């Protein structure tokens, strides 16, 4: 199951991977999304599971079906995904960071200084 983990529903992971690809630009808007069977063969999973993942994104309006040809990335999908990630940034990254800092006795000023340092040295910058 090429890199999928067994403790989370596979269709959710398929949807997340595709969403990730769209957000990162790997799957451009208007691009054709791999078919159910292509995904099933690649991940070695049941086609019904792969279809459920694709349909989840389609129901969200991130993918659109073109009859007879397949699924394509909808216009505006990338921005919507990035917007969603920005909204959840605090909840996903800042809150745990602050919690761990307070556990370690790092105060707010120190934490801000650490973040600024990381930004300046470029250590935390995504490649």
């Amino acid at each position, binding site marked *: 199951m090429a890199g999928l983990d067994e403790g989370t529903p596979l269709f959710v992971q398929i949807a997340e991977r595709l969403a990730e690809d769209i957000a990162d630009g790997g799957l451009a808007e208007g691009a054709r999304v791999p078919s159910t069977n292509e995904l099933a*063969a690649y991940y070695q999973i049941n086609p019904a*599971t792969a279809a459920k993942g694709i349909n989840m994104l389609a129901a969200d309006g991130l993918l659109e079906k073109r009859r007879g040809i397949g699924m394509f990335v909808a216009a505006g999908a990338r921005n919507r995904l990035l917007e969603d990630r920005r909204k959840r940034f605090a909840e996903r990254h800042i809150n745990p960071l602050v919690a761990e800092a307070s556990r370690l006795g790092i105060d707010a000023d120190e934490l801000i200084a650490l973040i600024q340092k990381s930004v300046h040295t470029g250590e935390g910058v995504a490649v």
Partner: protein
Amino acid sequence: MTPAISITGLTRRYRDQFALNDVSLDLEAGSITGLLGRNGAGKTTLLRILAGQEFPSTGSVQVLGAGPAENEAVLRRTVFVREDQTYPDFAVRHALRAASWWYPNWDAELADELQAAFELPAGRAIKKLSRGMRSALGITIGLAARAEVTMFDEPYAGLDAVARHLFYDRLLADYAEQPRTVLLSTHLIDEAAGLLERVVLLDRGRVVLQANADELRGSVTRVSGHALAVAEFIGGRPVWERRRVASQESVVLVGALSEADHVRARTLHLNLEPLTLQQVVVHAAGTPEAGIQLRTSA
């Protein structure tokens, strides 16, 4: 949708032993189902009855809308590959030819492809084949038959991991091209997990769990940490196992976790570890009410 396989109140008794005890089960056409359970749970008996090779003591079995026993119309649309399948005394090519006559949907091209992929020697007498090669022959017949109901009972005795993955790949590819009802009995759950749409778990002749495979993932979690924190987190929810050493406790919690659960686990310093399908099945096999608990907590 009409089920491809419909079983109602099926019991199979050998003297006073129950091989199958009041099994009821519907399998939809066009799905891959994993038939799981320990040795002696009744998997092979169930498959043999579905293939018309054995008779129910009581209850009814319908395959493609009719009873399979001595029903040629049904049996030609059904293929059953057993663990350690035995063949009459002839060569590989003869076995393949005989199968091509019997199965109306036989795909000769696919049979050739599989034969080449598994490196099956066409002229070799079957009794001179290794165990793995005999399994490969069974798999070749099972897939090339393209039967509407395709049943494999631990089909890979003696096959190495590479050959088993070849089987999974070919099964998926051919299933995608021509969906059918596949029933696969296996102990290698981790390997085959992704292929399965549904799982049916037998334990001592009874169905203890039938579920969508993907819904089981993430539905059972191991919770570990300080015993007091674990107790607070679990509350009255169903659990399958408790282990304790000193102040540390580890509990298998049944039921999907909410976002709030994850936050609470973090504040309580608990470790959450979702169980894999294989682990869920191992735990469920020892819990007669497993299916009910999973359903009610979902």
